């Protein structure tokens, strides 16, 4: 990955590292750490989605479903079968990857609205299953008593520990994804996005790659879901409904699909907007949320990262990246 991306990553890592110490002394913003834990969890979903949307050019309105499949797999395995949470997390990724493959192979032949529709339908079906399979999932009242995550023999309960754990994983995933993007595979993805026919002509199995990116995004959502499960220790189908799938797409859109940084910026921003900053509007919050979306979609189609010519930088760093 390029030098610029490393620099940005270093900056971001430093910021994330000191953030809790910046906000904790101030009571009014001390709970921002909690918001950031959720932002981190959602970031994992959105990084995957950004790969799918921005690089493979496919839309998915089913990310919340994968998020939920990961979460429920973890929840069920740990609370009902006593499986080690980390193993359960792995189990979740396997389940998600399999489901994504089964759904992805027929879906990804579709495009545009049709693909949006197919993924949306799948997402809603999964949510109905969460609500209906009461014996497994606890149904609409939810699943409780999910064990905490343990690391080095200790329970992870403090918000600060969660914060660093989640963001640590986010950065590992980011590095992984940047490496993927600046490789043979990443080039192939960009090629598919630019011209599918030409990509096929140089031997890129476009359908296969799309399915694999879809699977990767599902796996990332699954990891996020497992983390969510053990953080909240309670699961409810409404955390994984269509509204959340739409929210994830919006986070990526608002940040900018052209780069993974966009997904990150958009997720953090929208998590704060949705949970914090709009609360001053009270009942008007829903209007403010809609208005922000509208403004971004109309006037900033490239997302927030397109504001400062960020996209051009990415372009250059990608070139450098090709050399490393």
């Amino acid at each position: 990955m390029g030098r610029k991306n490393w620099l940005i990553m270093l900056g971001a890592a430093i910021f994330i590292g000191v953030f809790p110490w910046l906000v904790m002394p101030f009571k009014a913003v001390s709970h921002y750490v909690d918001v950031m834990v959720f932002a981190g969890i959602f970031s994992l979903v959105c990084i995957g989605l950004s790969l799918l949307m921005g690089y493979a050019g496919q839309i998915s309105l089913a990310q919340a479903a994968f998020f939920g499949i990961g979460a429920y797999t973890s929840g069920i395995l740990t609370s009902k079968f006593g499986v080690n949470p980390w193993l359960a997390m792995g189990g979740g990724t396997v389940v998600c990857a399999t489901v994504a493959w089964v759904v992805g192979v027929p879906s990804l032949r579709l495009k545009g609205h049709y693909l949006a529709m197919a993924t949306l339908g799948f997402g809603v079906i999964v949510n109905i299953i969460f609500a209906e399979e009461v014996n497994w999932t606890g149904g609409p009242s939810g699943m409780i008593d999910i064990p905490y995550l343990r690391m080095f023999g200790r329970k992870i309960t403090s918000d600060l520990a969660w914060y660093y754990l989640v963001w640590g994983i986010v950065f590992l995933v980011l590095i992984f994804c940047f490496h993927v993007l600046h490789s043979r595979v990443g080039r192939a993805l960009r090629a598919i996005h630019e011209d599918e026919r030409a990509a096929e002509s140089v031997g890129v199995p476009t359908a296969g790659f799309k399915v694999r990116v879809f699977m990767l995004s599902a796996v990332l959502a699954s990891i996020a879901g497992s983390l969510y499960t053990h953080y909240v220790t309670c699961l409810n189908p409404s955390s994984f409904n269509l509204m959340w799938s739409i929210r994830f797409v919006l986070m990526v859109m608002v940040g900018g699909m052209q780069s993974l940084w966009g997904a990150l910026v958009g997720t953090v921003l929208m998590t704060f907007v949705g949970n914090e900053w709009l609360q001053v509007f009270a009942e008007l919050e829903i209007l403010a949320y809609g208005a922000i979306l509208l403004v971004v979609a109309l006037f900033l189609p490239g997302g927030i990262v397109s504001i400062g010519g960020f996209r051009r930088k990415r372009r250059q760093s990608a070139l450098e990246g090709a050399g490393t």
Partner: protein
Amino acid sequence: MKSAKNLIGLTVLGLLITAAVLFWSKGEGIAAEKEPYKIGAVFSITGGASLLGEPEKKTAEMIRDEINKQGGIDGHPLELIIYDDETDPTKCNLAVKKLIKKDEVPVIIGPSTSGTSLAVVGVAEEAQVPLVSCAASYKIVTPVETHKWIFKVAGSDSHVVGKMFDYMKSKKVSKIGIMTVSDGFGASGREELVRLAPEYGITIVADERYGPQDTDLSAQLTKIRSAQPDAVVNWSTGPTQVLAVKNWRDLGMDKIPLYQSHGFGNLKNLELAGKAAEGVILPLARVNVGNLLPDDQPQKKVIMEYTKSYDERYKEPVSSFGGHAWDSMHIAIAALKAVGPDPAKIRDHIENTKDFVGQHGIFKMSPQDHNGLSKDDLEMVVVKDGKWALAK
């Protein structure tokens, strides 16, 4: 150029919002003479359960104003901090954390629904802040050993179901068909119906479900009808319970009496269902039927007061849900009055609440029971001439 303008605009907007947030969090309570007492509240004011959260919020705000008009709690003004969780467990979780960390409240009331309540039980427990939920599920307060800091003011569904089954037995009903909405409210009700039926010698011959936004329940009712039960039980909140009444009537199922859950306890439902609702039977908390109670009923006074002032202020009838907020607010206020803003002391005080006369009953909390209600706190009610009447 354009993007530069956008950038500036967004930055300014961000700064304004931050400034507003900071101002808000600092600005309140400056004028108070004595340190204000805080109560944190999380309700589902919007989203799927907004029909619950809305009256809860209104009730809580009304009580705050009443208390402050009377000079606060021992001279301490009452500060009520309400967050909307949008009926979303994630948002609810964050809201409770915010109440604990940012607002440092010594006691929290809400959330409105079982799903959201369960999502924050762990948070309150971990932070050791007492939480008085307004939702019904027994899972919220059991087992008590791991739910030391959690209370709830809504009667458990087992009380409601028990009351209903008692009444059914007296009416010689032995086979019932149930239909429940597939959200937390309906799922929890269904669980209790299925669990308790054998104890009362009742057989469930049909078990149907539907979505909270369904537009037609004829199919479910038709299926129930063909199972030939002695009664139908519908368990939901919101428009579907009115729909159930209408469809039940339209299908000509009058001979199979329709029982509703306590969720039906809102005069608006009677208005919407109109004539179709005649004869519907349901167990109801006394808050909904204040005027039907005999004058010597201990709850009569508080219920009539609440009914009157709520109606005056908001021009709408009270509902069960507002009643929950009333109970939780007053339990919290009583604790604050007795022991001051110390979470641990408040917890102990709430746990020892005895004979607290509330809207939903007379609470008898104990270390074994963090709810304090029983099925005796409910009344069986039948709809007669578009009004509630006590069922005989």
